[in-house]
Structures are given as C-alpha cells and as structure tokens.
C-alpha cells in the first residue's frame, strides 16, 4: 500500500498545472446552457484538444495520451483546482466513449472518437422517455428495419437529454423487438441531430436555462453502421454506459474536494453558527472519503478487477455529498444565499441548483439503493 503519487505522476501534474494556468480563461465562460455559452465551451474543448489535454486517458490514435487511471485522476484534480470551464463534451467523452471503446467497431471508433475529443461533435444522451425514467426498460421509442434493409427507421420521443438543445449527435436506446422480454429487444443507436425527422424542443430548467431538451424522432433513417454493439443487446451496452456514469468516470473526486475546500474557505472567512461546524467538517470528510474510495477502486482496476455494483454506492454518495456541500455553503451565506449576483453567492446558488439534480439523474438514488440492497447485500428483488 502506498498513497503517494509517483514522481512520473507528479511531473505530469506539474505539466498539466502549467498548461491550465496558461490557458484557462481568466473570466468564467457564459453558461453552457445558452447558445453563445455552448459555442464558447466548444472552443475551449478545441483548445484543449490541440494540445492533447481533452481526453488524456484515451488511446493516442483518437486524440488522447494513452495515460493510466491515476494520471487521469491527477489531471482531473488539476482541472478542478484551476477552476477550468465545465466540460460541454462530458456525455460523449465520459459516458459514450468508454462504451464505444468496449463495444464499438474499429471503424466506429475511428469515425466518432476524434471529433468527440476535439469538441467538433458534441453528444447528448437519449435514454429517458416520458413514461420511462427510473423504469428505463419500459422505453417505447422503436426502431424497425428500413424497407431496403440497409438500416433502421426510428420513431418515438426522448426527454431530459442534457445538452440536447445544442448537441450535434445523440446516443440512445430504442426498442427493436417489441415481442421480446423488456430488457431484451433493445438496441443502442448513434443518431446525428441534423438527420431529417429529428425535432428538438428545449426545456427550460429550474434556473430558466435550457440545460436539457426533448427529442422527437419521426421516421428518422439511420444507417446500419450507427448501431453500437449487437442488435438486441442494447440493455447490456447501456449498462456499461450507466456503470461509467455512476462509477469512476463521470464524477471525478476533484470536483467535490475542490468544492469542499472552497466551503472550508468560506467558513474560515465568514464564520458561522456552531451548528455549521458539523456540516462543514462532514462535507470536507465526505469529499475526501470519496477521493480515497476512488483511489481504492482505481487500484483494483489497475490490478485488473472490474468495477462492480459498488458503483451504485458511489453514485448515492457523490450526489448526496454534492447537495450537502452546497447546502452548508448556503447556510453559511445566510441572508446573502438568495442573491444571484456574480461571485461567491451566485456560484454557490448555481452549484446548489445543479447539485439537486444529482440524486435524480444517472438513475435515481432510490433505484441505486435497490441495487445496493439486492446486489451488495443479497436481498431478494421486490
């Protein structure tokens, strides 16, 4: 057991830190949930890609540096330390890409991964439907073979697609065999958002900005080579993506340790009632425990173990830690907490609203608790 980073990792940290210090925009970019902000964030992704910082853990041929999991964690620590912009490409690079590297054909990887890394093609996730949220296997959007037999025709409706208002591409699951059992007969598709028959209706979020969208599919023709994985195997392919979402890749610990550090700073600067000591200390500890847990998991992955249902513990913990950190900050801000002004109060408020989505997206925490109970504790399915 050794909890120190190697000299090579530390040298990489210094290199990443230097690049970020030189390149992170001095002023925050406009919100990525606006058209202008989306393009500003896309430009940031391009500038990272040009110097090979956008996807450091990917193979070199797709724009990465072929680095290991600990170097990725080091990069993430430096990224949050530098207060660099939000990753507009996160659905693609953190969720779709690991799935594509596992299930995609060589041609698909060569076609989709480099523009994803460059920010030229930004992806959204088309999973939830109006009647299929927590019960994801209940999706009804369907795909049937085209008359010519050279592809598929998609019909239906997806919703709550983050980045959906401005994204270039969508990955989603569609029912290809209505006769099959619910979890079978699903297929994972890659769809260009400018395909004829795709209609996007942005949905203003709780903060008034269009963070997500509904996507309507009306006889959308999709060629055969835009199926990811086997036809009918969409559920297991999707679960690989969900594993990434809940497990290691979507929410790196640096995000929480950074926020907890700022919370401790806020407490130090403004003080607070005695009762806030518990909340601030707990937020610091939970963020650090999540970081340690990630090192723990990554060490197992580095030794060739797979990430198991513990990923569901992760998802519950990071989402609730995020809410707790931001709640504690608003409590410290007291009467200033409701102000939307630029700087500290507005950022905490913005972060608070965002944190409240965490226990809902990526599979609600209630569903994750069922997974923990059934798969880690062996309790019977209800």
């Amino acid at each position, binding site marked *: *057991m*050794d*909890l*120190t*980073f*190697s000299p090579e*990792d530390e040298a990489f940290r210094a290199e990443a830190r230097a690049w970020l210090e030189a390149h992170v925009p001095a002023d925050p970019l406009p919100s990525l949930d606006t058209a202008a902000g989306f393009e500003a964030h896309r430009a940031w992704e391009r500038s990272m890609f040009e110097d090979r910082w956008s996807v450091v853990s990917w193979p070199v041929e797709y724009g990465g540096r072929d680095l290991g999991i*600990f170097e990725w964690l080091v990069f993430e620590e430096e990224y949050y330390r530098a207060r660099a912009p939000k990753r507009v490409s996160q659905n693609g690079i953190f969720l779709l890409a690991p799935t594509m590297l596992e299930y995609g054909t060589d041609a698909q990887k060569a076609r989709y991964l480099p523009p994803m890394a460059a920010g030229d093609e930004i992806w959204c996730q088309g999973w939830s439907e109006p009647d299929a949220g927590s019960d994801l296997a209940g999706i009804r959007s369907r795909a049937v073979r085209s008359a010519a037999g050279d592809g598929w025709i998609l019909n239906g409706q997806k919703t709550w697609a983050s980045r959906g208002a401005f994204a270039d591409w969508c990955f989603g699951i569609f029912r290809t065999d209505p006769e099959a059992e619910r979890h079978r007969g699903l297929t994972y598709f890659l769809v260009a958002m400018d395909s004829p028959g795709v209609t996007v209706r942005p949905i203003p979020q709780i903060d008034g900005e269009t963070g997500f969208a509904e996507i309507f599919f009306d006889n959308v023709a999709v060629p055969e080579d835009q199926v990811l994985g086997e036809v009918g195997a969409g559920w297991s392919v999707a679960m690989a993506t969900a594993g990434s979402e809940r497990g290691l890749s979507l929410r790196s610990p640096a995000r929480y340790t950074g926020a907890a550090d700022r919370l*401790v700073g806020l*407490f*130090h600067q403004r003080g607070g009632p005695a009762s806030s*000591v*518990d909340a*601030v*200390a*707990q937020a*610091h*500890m*939970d963020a*650090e*425990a*999540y970081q*340690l*847990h990630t*090192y*723990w998991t*990554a*060490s*197992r992955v*580095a*030794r060739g173990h797979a990430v198991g249902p*513990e990923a569901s*513990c992760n998802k*519950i*913990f990071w989402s609730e830690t995020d809410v707790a950190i931001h709640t504690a900050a608003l409590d410290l801000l007291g009467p200033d907490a409701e102000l939307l002004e630029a700087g500290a109060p507005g950022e905490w408020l913005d972060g608070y609203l965002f944190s409240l989505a965490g226990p809902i997206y990526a599979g609600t925490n*209630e569903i*994750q*608790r*069922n997974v*923990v*109970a*059934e798969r*880690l*504790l*062996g*309790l*019977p*399915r*209800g």
Partner: protein
Amino acid sequence: MDFAFSEEQEELRAGVRTVLDTECSPDALRAFDLADEDHRATLAANRWAVLAELGAPALVVPEAAHGLGLSDVDLVGVLEEAGRACLPEPLLETAALAAPTLAALLPDPTAAAALAALVEDDASFAVGGVDVAVGGLVSPTTVSPDGALRTPRVVGARDAAVFLLACRDADSGWQLHAVPEASCEVYPSPALSSSRDLSTVHWPLDAETLLAYGVAAEAAVALLADRAAAGSAALLVGLADRMLAITALYAKQRHQFGKAIGSFQAVKHLLADARVALEFARPATYRAAWSLAAAQPTLSHDASMAKAMASDAADLAARVALQVHGAIGYTWECDLHFFLKQTWALSRAWGDAATHRRLVLQAVTGH
C-alpha cells in the same frame, strides 16, 4: 499510488477470521458473558493464546525486539476482524496502542521488559489515563487521598501483565508509565458490553515505572490517541460489516405478508444507506493505518476522520440492524446485542464522531 492490501495482508486477515469464527463465535461470546470470574479468565487466556500463536499481539513489535516487525497496514485488517468478532480481549490496547508506544521508547529498560513479556510470555497490556476532547487531550487520572493514582475506564486490566497508564498535572504536564500488574489494584467496572473489559485502577506514582514525562510524554500520548482513533475505527468497520451481514441474512429469512422482509423497499433502503456509509468509512480507515505506518504529517487529521466516519457508519448500522430485526433484536437470546453494545461503546470511546469532526476541522483550518 497503490491503495490496496497485499496478498500476504489479505491472507493474514483471512487467517484471523477463520480462527475467530470458532474461538469468538456468538456462542462463545454468550458463554463468556455468563461465566464466573475464574471461568472467564480461563476462556480469555485460551483465546489470547490462539491469537498469540498467530502473532497478532506482537505484529508491529520490531524484529529487533523479537516481534514480527510488520506495520499498521498489516495490523488494520486484523483489528477489523477483531471488531467483526466482537473480541473481548484487549487486542487494540496490546497490539495497536501499548506495543508500538513501548517500541518507540526502546532501548528504555522499562519498555524493553514490557515488550519481552509480550513476546515471550504472551502477556497482554492494559491502557488508560487518556481521554480525547475537543480542546485537547485530557487525563481522567486523579490523585486519591492516600496519594495513589486512580484511573477510571482502563481497558484490558483484568488479565494484563503491564499497564500503560498516563496522568497529567497542571504544573509538570504529562507522564506516561508502564506499571507492572503486581503494583496495580484493579476494580472491574460493570459496563454495557461484555466485550469491553473496563476497570478503575489504583497505582502508585513511582519513578521506576516512568516511561516519559513532559514534552516527550505529551508527544507519546498524542500519538497514542491517534493510534487509538485509527485502531478503534478499524474495530468499528468490522462491527458494522458484521451487523449488516447478520441483518441481511435475517431480512432474507424472516417472512411477513408472505414475503421475505428484505424484499420490501422500506427495509432495503435502510440497509442500503448503512452499506453506503460503511463503503466510505472503510478507505478512510485504511488510509489512517497507512498514515500511521508511513508517519504522515496528516496523521492526526486522518485518524480523526477515520474515527468520525467509522463511528457514524457503525452507529447507523447498529440502528438499522436493530430496527430490521424488530422485537427479536431486542432480546438477549438473539446474537445481535453483542455487536450493538460493543458499537455503542466503541463509537464513543477515544472521542465520538462529533468530537473528531471538530478535530478534523481544526486540522484543516489550522485552528
């Protein structure tokens, strides 16, 4: 970065578990609880001999002092198993507190003699005289009218060969003593958990038994408190794991409304929350063990964080375990109460979660 146990460490832990599954089963705990003093002493001595055969008490004693020369990272899994089994004997006090404290004071002859008793005679140690508080460490040791010192809540005193005892007075500061059993008067204190061996000890202040005083004693006592926080966190992680295992099994077997109660979401979610808390207390606890072994400057912070998280995780597991068992869990007949009581005791021993949260925040903000 390699945050994982070696194969040897996993094997050591598994070996301890196998032995304790037999020697410290719930039936053995029940027999121990019901035994008279002579029988209790025999049971304790037999179990201690088995642990000594595995080398557990002398695990971190240096090879130069004829110990195994292993580290706190090797020991943490053993402590976790001791917690899991609700072990009544003072393994934490002997292996994780007294032994390394004495080893750090070598070649002091008092320390050397005590360690020799541990290694050669399978002696156990008692520890007392230090309490963790938000404002700093305090000693509950008082001076009685006859001039003897009186230390309450000494752990492991009934069978100990050597007592590691601290006292503090406002003028001269801390003193740390290794007092032979023959010089101590032991008055067992009835306590909630039969796996907590607590006594009030009367002992003479004697220059012969002095290990350290002043600044050196203060540093030794501070390190002892960090060791105690980290080590009791490991016991609590083991207890939480055991209570969840017992309760998950019960929730599968117990049927109501024609179904296993574990199939109801209300029950699942209680257990899942406790499982999540344990999942994240574990790496904090293992990190504290590594920080001890690697003498990290963040040790106090890391030990306090481990104790705070493990206390909360074990308290939650205990609360959930009792609730899911229902009335049967409230009986002496059911095994669960051994683990509940030990948890309620240990979650507060060496500083409760709220105290350690404050210590963590003090370490982070610098005041």
